[in-house]
Every structure is written in C-alpha cells, then in structure tokens.
C-alpha cells in the first residue's frame, strides 16, 4: 500500500527536534560565550567537546539575563529603549534562531497538514495510519515500538499544536526580542513542540507518556525560564512535581493496561476491549481502576481539582509560553488522553461520573477565583482551568467529540487572549497588574480588537467559535445519559461567571481612565508585526473556528463530529456491550430530545452569559466604585476568594510541611540516633572491652614471649591429654 506523504509523518515531530538540535548548538556555541562575555565572565575552553547530540534534552545553557536587567527582570520586563541604552549590536545568531525556530515548526505544520489531507482522502473507516519507527523497549512480552499513529483524533491535535504553535513561535520572535537568552528560549520551545507532537502522535501509552513527561519538562524549563527570580523557579518546580503526581497515576494505569491487555498500543488495546469484556477479564472494577488512574494523570496535566494549583503559578513564565503550553496545547493533553481512552472510560460509569463532577466543579470553582484576581495573566490562567473543566465535563458525560471541539476552539481563543495580554504587557514594559492599566484601547488598537473578539468567543456569544463548542458541551451535559441537569446548571453558571470576569478584564484593561504609571504610559505602543499578525490570524480562527462544528439543530452539518466519528463511534458500539455504556456516544442522544428544548437551553445559556457581561459592564464601567464596596461588605468572603480559597496554603500546611517534618524526623531520629546508635554502640562496646583487655599487654617483649610459651605448653598439654584419653 502506498502511503504517499503519510510515510513522512515522522517528519512532524522530527522537524522540531531538528530545531532543538540546531538551536541547541547555537545556544551552546554562540549564545553562551556571548552572554558570558557580556556579563564579564571568563569563557572557559573546551568548547570543542560539546556537540549537537546534547540537543534532545537541551536545557538552554546560557545565562538568561545580563546583569543590567537586575531584579525587575522579573515579569516580562521589556522596557523599550530605557534600560537598554548600552546594549550591543544584535548578534547574527539571533537572526538565525529567529528564522530557524519558527521555520521548523511551520514546516512541521505543513507536513502535518499534508498528512491529514492525505488521511482525509481515505475512506472513513480506514483513517488510521500507523508508522513504526524502531523498536524501543522490549522485555519478554513487553514490546513497545517508537511508533506514530495518525487518525482523526490525533490529526486534529497535531494540526492545532503545530498551527497554534507556529503562530506563537512567530509571536515569540517579537515578544522575546529583548531577551538575552534568546536561543535558549527557542530551544525549549522547539523541544516542547517535539514532546507535544510525540504525545499526540504516539501510538501507544508509553510513547505518549514520553511526550507527556516531555511537555512537563519543557513546561518546567520555560516556567522557570527567568530562573533568577525565586517565584519563577518555585513555580517551575511546583508544576513539575504536581505533574509528577499525575504521572504516577498514568504510570500505574499503564501497568494495569499492560497486564490486562498484554500490550500498550492504542490499536491493540482498544481492539481487545470487547473481547476481554466478554471473557470477563476486563471487569468494570478493573476498567474503573484504570480510568481513574488515567484521570489522575489528566488532573495533573490539565490542572483539574485537586492538582490545578500549579497552573496559576505557571504564569511566571514568558507570556507566549503561557499561551502555548498553559493554554492551548499541553494542558489539553489530559483531555486528549481521556478522549483517546474513551473506549475504557465508557466501561466505567463511576469514573465517568467522577470526571464529569470534577470537571464541573473545577469549572465553577476556578471561575469564581478568576473574579477577584488582579493580575491579567492569572485571570486568564484561572479561566483556562475553568475551560478545561468544561472539557472534562464533556468527557465525563460521554461527549468526547464536544470535548475535543472545545479543546480546539479554546486553543484558538485562549491562545489569542494570552498573546493579547502579552502584547499589553509588552506595551506596558512588563506591567501585569490590571489595576495599573485602563484606557489602553487607543494605544494598542489591534491588540484590543483581537482580544475583544476572543473575549466574545469565550463568553459564548452566538456565531463565534466558543459558542458552538461550549453549547455543544452544555447540551450534552443536559441530554446525555451520563449527564444531568444539575451539572448543566453548574456549567451554565460557570459560563456566566466566565463572561463576567472576562469582560471585567477587558473593561479594566482597555476601557476607562488610564491608571498607568505615567512613565510607562509614555512608552506604551502597539506591538511589532511579528506579534500582531499571529494575533489577527488567531482572531479569525476564534471567529470561524467553530463553523466546522455547527450542530444540526442550527442547520449545520457538524463536519467536526463526522470527522471524529471513526474514533469515537466504534467505541460506542463496543461499549454498548456493557450495560452501563448503552447509548453513551453523544451523537445518537439528541434524537430523544426535541429540537425546541435544545434551542431553548441554548438561548438560556446565552442569556446567562449576557447577564454576566451586563454585570461586568455595570460594575466596571458604570459604577466603578461598587466592586470595592462589595469587597468591604463581605470581607471574609472576598478574602477567601482573593486568596484562592487558601488551597495553596492548605497544601503547604497539610502536605508539604508534614512531609518535610517527617523526613527530618526520620533522618535525625531514625538514621542518626537509632541505626547509627546501634552501630556506634557496638563499636563503643568493643572499644571499652578492648580498653580493659589491653592491660594484659605489658609492653615488655619478654612478657609476650612467655605468653607464647605458656600457650604452646598448654596446647601441647592438651594434645597429650587427648591422646591419653583416647
């Protein structure tokens, strides 16, 4: 069978890897000596020993900020012209990096697009392409190849990742133009693309896990990119560790999967589901265990309760990173994994319920936190957590298509929001506090326009992408057999809150009087084209991205659902064997409900969203003093919400302190006192005994000779005695 372009599927992850290698070499051999020299540090010899093979795990090797940035380098400090008076001619390597890094991702996008088109030309049931690259781990019955799989689901993911990724790379070139460790940044970013593409294109759980941890690693490196800042390196570590807790779940889930199915490959595992179900090997309990563990991983990666705490802190990273990793792609990996494993999830109704409830609770919980945040990026971060909650809600009610749909549209508008906020921050020389913004509309018109579009999209204004995807989720929540009206109410309420705080953000930032620092205001400026063009493209996508999934009730053909049907439909068919899974798959459900109900609920949710917008308008445009009053009126409530329900503090107190104390106790009491006490005690015993016995030794040679003789006499005497006795 001729696969044509599909045979080059490996290029999709390989191209960013090439970028890592090339940029890594640049970072190592050009940027590192350059920065060291700039900082007045000696450049050691031995350059020749390094080589590009460091690439794959390249953590940038260069010092990030030259001394002049100092402490305030913190938040994206990009003061224009001011503190950069004496800085050198842009070295040539930066131009090379600025071209290479986006170019490889762009090329990767093109290849991915061609592959997907080629795949689309196949019949619907033949749209799964597996490419085995090389055997990776093999031990006994375990055989894990490094293999890629392109099917409907992974093609959506691959396109979103490479597409949005490319735009953000381009944006980064402008955004990071004042950054000293330019190459290091792009090494990490390219590495992230590689890991993320490995994640979505992997054809087995283990390789997916490689990407899964790989993106976590890149996230760690990029959050802590400005590592001189304590909060940044703390946040990076926190992200990694919290994700590790999730990974622990995935790891165990993989063990269960392997020892149940005898394989880790998606195709084999899912193909065996019905068989093992019939033979009784795959009990509901087992499926529940597997899926709950997988979901634990998803809560870590996708920042769901209880492991969401790392994501808001992750905003310490550069803004494009927040857009790419912590909004558009990496955090949705959990959703992807749950959707990928839908065949298993559908067998475990308990897990489905847990997923739905956690999703809904997270959605509303983090939305409420978003109300009170003043840092523009943190608002967006909580918004992301909330939107991810929606996706899990969708998964939990069996509407995997809707989840992936929302994942895609969310990638567009949330990336746009982050990039827009980045543009604002860029304009304000690093200011992130919304209380020090206002009236920015006239300074950054393109940014404002695009961000406004995205805000409308996330708020669920009809016609924009967010509307279709969110509404699909809400409808499924209401109508699906896994769903319930209660969840619908929660989700709709969360949608209203979302609309409220997003408009609060827009009003505080772009409207009203300027509350900017005059010094900052002087330099406020629109961003360069490398930043505004990606914004504009994303804005178009935010508007139009939803049109491929217009539901039937609105006269659309829901292309998106048809595209994904081969992935989720057979699943539903297989799941139908299980009692609990009957009628699980989303598309067939609305049949039982009148179209009027669907339309009515749709209107209701739009109404709630409009209420949210209205409230925001009232509080932040009409009665601007009111929010403070409310805060004063319920100080405790405000305090609790403002401090994010004290969850971080609770974790610190309940987990971290405890562990550290116990560890210290173990070390000092058990190790040093108990075990070494025994050991040293024995030693002391021997020594004191020796101290007594040593008096026998007079030190005079004659004495020793006599002892020797006496011993000999006794010995011979004993031999004699024995011989006499016998």
């Amino acid at each position: 069978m001729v696969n044509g372009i599909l045979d080059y599927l490996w290029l999709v992850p390989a191209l960013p890897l090439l970028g890592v290698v090339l940029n890594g070499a640049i970072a190592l051999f050009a940027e590192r000596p350059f920065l060291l020299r700039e900082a007045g540090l000696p450049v050691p010899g031995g350059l020749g020993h390094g080589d590009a093979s460091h690439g794959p795990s390249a953590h940038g090797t260069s010092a990030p900020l030259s001394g002049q940035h100092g402490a305030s380098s913190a938040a994206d400090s990009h003061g224009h012209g001011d503190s950069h008076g004496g800085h050198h001619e842009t070295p040539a390597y930066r131009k090379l990096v600025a071209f290479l890094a986006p170019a490889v991702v762009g090329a990767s996008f093109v290849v991915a697009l061609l592959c997907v088109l080629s795949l689309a030309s196949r019949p619907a049931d033949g749209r799964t392409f597996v490419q085995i690259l090389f055997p990776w781990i093999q031990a006994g019955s375990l055989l894990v190849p490094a293999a890629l799989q392109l099917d409907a689901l992974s093609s959506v993911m691959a396109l979103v990742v490479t597409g949005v990724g490319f735009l953000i790379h381009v944006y980064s070139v402008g955004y990071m133009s004042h950054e000293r460790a330019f190459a290091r940044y792009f090494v990490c970013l390219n590495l992230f693309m590689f890991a993320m593409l490995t994640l979505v294109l992997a054809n087995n759980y283990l390789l997916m896990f490689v990407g899964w941890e790989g993106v976590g690693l890149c996230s760690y490196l990029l959050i802590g990119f400005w590592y001189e800042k304590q909060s940044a390196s703390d946040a990076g570590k926190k992200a990694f560790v919290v994700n590790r807790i999730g990974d622990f779940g995935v790891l165990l889930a993989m063990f269960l999967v392997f020892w149940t199915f005898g394989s880790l490959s998606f195709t084999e595992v899912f193909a065996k589901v019905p068989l093992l179900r019939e033979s009784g090997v795959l009990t509901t309990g087992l499926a529940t265990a597997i899926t709950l563990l997988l979901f634990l991983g998803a809560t870590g990666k996708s920042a769901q309760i209880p492991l969401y705490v790392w994501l808001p802190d992750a905003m310490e990273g550069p803004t494009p990173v927040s857009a790419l990793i912590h909004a558009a792609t990496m955090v949705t990996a959990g959703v992807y994994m749950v959707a990928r494993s839908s065949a298993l999830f559908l067998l475990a109704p308990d897990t489905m319920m847990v997923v739905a409830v956690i999703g809904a609770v997270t959605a509303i919980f983090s939305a409420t936190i978003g109300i009170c945040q003043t840092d523009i990026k943190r608002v967006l971060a909580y918004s992301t957590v909330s939107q991810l909650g929606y996706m899990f809600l969708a998964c939990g009610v069996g509407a995997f298509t809707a989840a992936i749909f929302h994942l895609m549209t969310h990638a567009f508008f949330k990336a746009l929001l982050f990039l827009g906020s980045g543009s604002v921050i860029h304009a304000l020389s690093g200011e992130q506090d919304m209380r020090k913004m206002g009236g920015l509309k006239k300074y950054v018109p393109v940014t404002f326009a695009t961000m406004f579009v995205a805000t409308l999209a996330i708020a669920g204004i009809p016609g924009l992408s967010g509307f279709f995807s969110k509404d699909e989720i809400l409808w499924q929540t209401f109508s699906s057999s896994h769903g319930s009206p209660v969840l619908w109410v929660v989700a709709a309420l969360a949608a209203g809150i979302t609309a409220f705080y997003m408009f609060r953000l827009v009003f505080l930032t772009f409207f009203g009087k300027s509350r900017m620092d005059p010094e900052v205001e002087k330099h406020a400026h629109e961003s360069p084209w490398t930043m505004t063009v990606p914004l504009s493209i994303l804005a178009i996508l935010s508007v139009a991205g939803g049109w491929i999934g217009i539901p039937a009730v609105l006269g659309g053909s829901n292309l998106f659902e048809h595209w994904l049907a081969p992935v989720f439909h057979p699943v539903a068919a297989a799941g139908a064997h299980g009692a609990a899974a009957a009628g699980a798959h989303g598309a067939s459900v609305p049949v039982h409900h009148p179209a009027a109900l669907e339309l009515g609920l749709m209107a209701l949710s739009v109404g709630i969203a409009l209420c949210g917008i209205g409230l925001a308008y009232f509080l932040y445009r009409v009665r601007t003093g009111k929010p403070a009053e409310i805060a004063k009126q319920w100080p405790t409530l405000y305090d609790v919400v403002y401090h994010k329900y004290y969850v971080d503090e609770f974790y610190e107190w309940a987990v971290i302190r405890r562990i550290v104390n116990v560890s210290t106790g173990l070390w000092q009491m058990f190790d040093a006192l108990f075990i070494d006490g025994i050991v040293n005690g024995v030693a002391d015993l021997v020594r004191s005994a020796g101290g007594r016995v040593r008096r026998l030794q007079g030190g005079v040679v004659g004495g020793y000779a006599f002892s020797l003789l006496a011993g000999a006499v006794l010995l011979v005497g004993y031999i004699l005695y024995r011989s006499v006795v016998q």
Partner: protein
Amino acid sequence: MTGVALLDQHLLSVLIGLPLIGAALLLFFPREGNGAIRNFTLLVTVVEFLLSLSVVARFDVAAAGMQLVERVPWIPQYGISYIVGVDGISLWILMLTTFIMPITILSTWSAVAKNVKEFMVFMLVLETAMVGVFLATDLFLFYIFWELVLIPMYFLIGVWGGERRIYAAIKFFLYTFAGSVLMLVAIIALYFHHHAVTGVYTMDLMKLYELTIPVKLQLWLFAAFFLAFAFKVPMFPFHTWLPDAHVEAPTAGSVILAAVLLKMGTYGFLRFAMALFPVAAADWTPLIAVLAVIGIIYGALVAMVQKDVKKLVAYSSVSHLGFVMLGLFAFNLQGIEGAILQMVNHGISTGALFLIVGIIYERRHTRLISEFGGLAKVVPLFCFCFMVVTLSSIGVPGTNGFVGEFLILLGVFKVQKWFAVVAATGVIFAAVYMLWMFQRVMYGKITNEENLRLADMNGREVAYMLPLLLFILWIGVYPQPFLRRMDASVNAFVTRFEAKKQAALAGSPAGETVLVRYFDVKKGGAR
C-alpha cells in the same frame, strides 16, 4: 603465545590482570612525576575499556550460559579453580566498571594532589578487584575479589577523604566486612553440602547451581548471603554507612562507590543468593520487597531534607537501589532486566552526579546547598550537564532512568501490585528532592560573592562528562542493544528459578516454608 592469541583466548583474564599490571608498573614511576602517573593510569584504564568493548563484540546474544569462559585448576585438592566468564547478567555491569574508570581517573587530575602515585595504584587495584568480582564464577575466587575491593576503597576513603574520613572508612570497612564474613561461612557450608551430596569438592558456581539444596539449609545460607549483599547494596536499614562513606570519600571514591561497589551487592543477589537458593529467595521475597520499598521512600524522604549535596545524592542512592532490589525480587523478565539496566543507569547517573558535585566542590570547597544559588548564570555549561543528569536521576522519559524504572515497576506490578504502587510514589519524591536541590544550587540570584567568580567546566571536565551524558540519552532513547544482550541469560535464570521452585514445592511437605502460603498459592508462576 602471541598477543593476539592471548587476547583471543584469555580476554577476561587480561581484563582482570591488566589494571593490576598497570598498578605494578606504576610503582616504578618517580613520585614527583604526577603528570606521567596520571597519564599512564588513564592510558591503562582506557585500554581496559577498549578491550572490554571486544567482550561486547564477541558476546553471543543467543547464548544463555557463561561465555568466554576460562578455567584453570588452582587448588585442585580442594576443588578450587580459577574460573571466569561473562553472561548477560554481568556483561553490562562489567562494561559499566570499565567505562566509569577512565572517567573517574580523569576527574582526579586536579582533585587529588597529594600522594598521587598511591592513589592511582589503589584505583587500579580496585579496578582489578571489581572486574574480578563481576567475572568470577568460582565462589572462592569471587570471595577473594569481593574482599579485595575493600582494601583499596578503605584507603581511598581513609587517606584522601574529608574531615571525618577515618570514622567513615572504618565504618565502611566494618559494615561490609561483617556481612562478608557470614557469607564466607555460608560459602563453606555450601561447599561441604555439595561434597556431602555428590562426593565432589567444588567451588564452581555452575556446578553448585545444579545442586538441589534442602529448603531449611537454603533459608540459613540465604540469610548469610543476604546480610553480606544487603550491607553492600545497601538496603534499608543497613544503609547508614553509605552517607558517611560518600560524604567523606574523595570524588573519585564516591563515584566508584556509587557506580560500581553498590552494584556488587545487587549483582551478588542475582548471581549468588537468588540463583543458588531460589526457594529461600522466594520465601524471603516479602521481607526483602518490604525493605526495598521502605528504602525507596525512606531514602527519598531523608534525601529531601539534607543540607549537604553529597549526602543528598547518597540517600538518593538508597532510594534508587531500592528500586533495583524490588525489580530483582519480582522474579520475572521485566523486573530483572529492568533491575540490571537500572544498575547501569544508577552507575551512570549517580556517578555523574558525584562528579558534578566534585566539580563545584573543587571550586568552592564546600558542599552545603546553602552556600550556592544562582550558579546557572555563571556556569551555564555546568548547569546544562547538571540538568541532564538530574533529569536522568529523576527518570524523565528519554533518559536512561525512565526505562529502568518503568521495567522494574512493570515487573513488580505483575506480582505485587501494592509494592509497585508504593514504590512508584518514590518517583514523585525523586522529582521533589532533586529539583529542589537543583533549584537551590543553580537558580535564583547569586547571593554568595564567591560564586560570582566561579569558572565554568573546562575541557577536561567536559571530556569526562560528555560520555556520561551520551549514555544517559542513548539508553533512554534506544535501550535495545542493552536489553537484547540480557535476554537469554535472564530468561534462563527465570526459567531455572521457576523450575527449582516448583521442584522444591513438589518435594517438600506443605507448610515447610512460608513460601507455600505466601508466594505461590496466591499468584501463578511469574513470568
């Protein structure tokens, strides 16, 4: 005999003898010529490594038994022979030894300034002893090498160590010696038992493998071997010599201690304790698994709160070796192959970590975490190496640590779910203590004036770090060449283990061992 023929027929003996000859030649070097001494030692170890590569080249992947065997009667009256051989179990540990030695030697260029000649002689003698331990398949020969390792190591710690070096050296010596003496008794008992059954005195391991030992005797003998190896590994709660020894040892000593000496314990379990006494081993499995799991968690927790980088790494070794032990006692292909791979991984990663610590220690003469901070800015290359090594130690996929840990946990999960679950939390803790340490050392602002003038890694340091990084990635990305060469031997081991266990179960009255209740009734045979 021509040189080629010598290499052809006595490759393993050459591997054992070469460092010793090197050490003897070193005696004729003038004390003052430190440069010549160092270069010569490096040359010897590099040649040794290159020769050991030909072992890999000549290794037959399909053969399960000992390869390149050499057999010379030594004390024939007592059935003691000089028998050496290599199989899939020892191959990579042997390679690790010969690989890590030149790196270690290279790392001492500036770290060891006093008594260079003696230092190098001890290093070479140590190499002979270590290589001998992994190649000997005669119990008597093995025991000699096993004990021979102690002597140079004792001096390396005691002479070139830190402030409390004498305490650490004696503690190290006594701890390990206490265990090995019991092992000696067990070896002799086994020897006499073999005579009693077959009428032949022999110390040949392969012959002893064929022996069927009564369960009761097995339990006792295994206990003695267990103590010897558990001290060496070190398993919780026999581990307290390790932090002291590591902290006080010179960098090179720490590297070898971590990379190779600890592996002698785990290797000993696999080659001797488990293979000779399968029923007892199976019987002891719960206890050992529990200790291993405790070691994993305990080591990680205690590592977390250390203030001294070296001590932290030492405790992390306790944790990592817990994984290895757990994998071995899964008694299935995945677990054991994972454990062997993890031995190599731990050697590479932890060896590299000690080298990393050595590099900053050389510059600052302190290892306290609080003395550092913000180093990433002044020493970017160092930071990069440190990062990769840290990730490998954490077991991030794509690095060697992941493959090993995954296989181990996969294997363990099959036989003992809950052990695997608890052990897997060790993976989380590993991230916590390593990253926390990394952050405190490398990130943040430079608070200590002295750190501003730190020099980055020089060419020599890069030269010895680079091979380690390369292997970290190689094993992580393409472990096949390593795993394939273990397959046949490990498979044979597992098969023999199962057969012997079943035979013992069939032959012994029910209830004679805990095993019957515990291990087999509950689970099927593990494979």
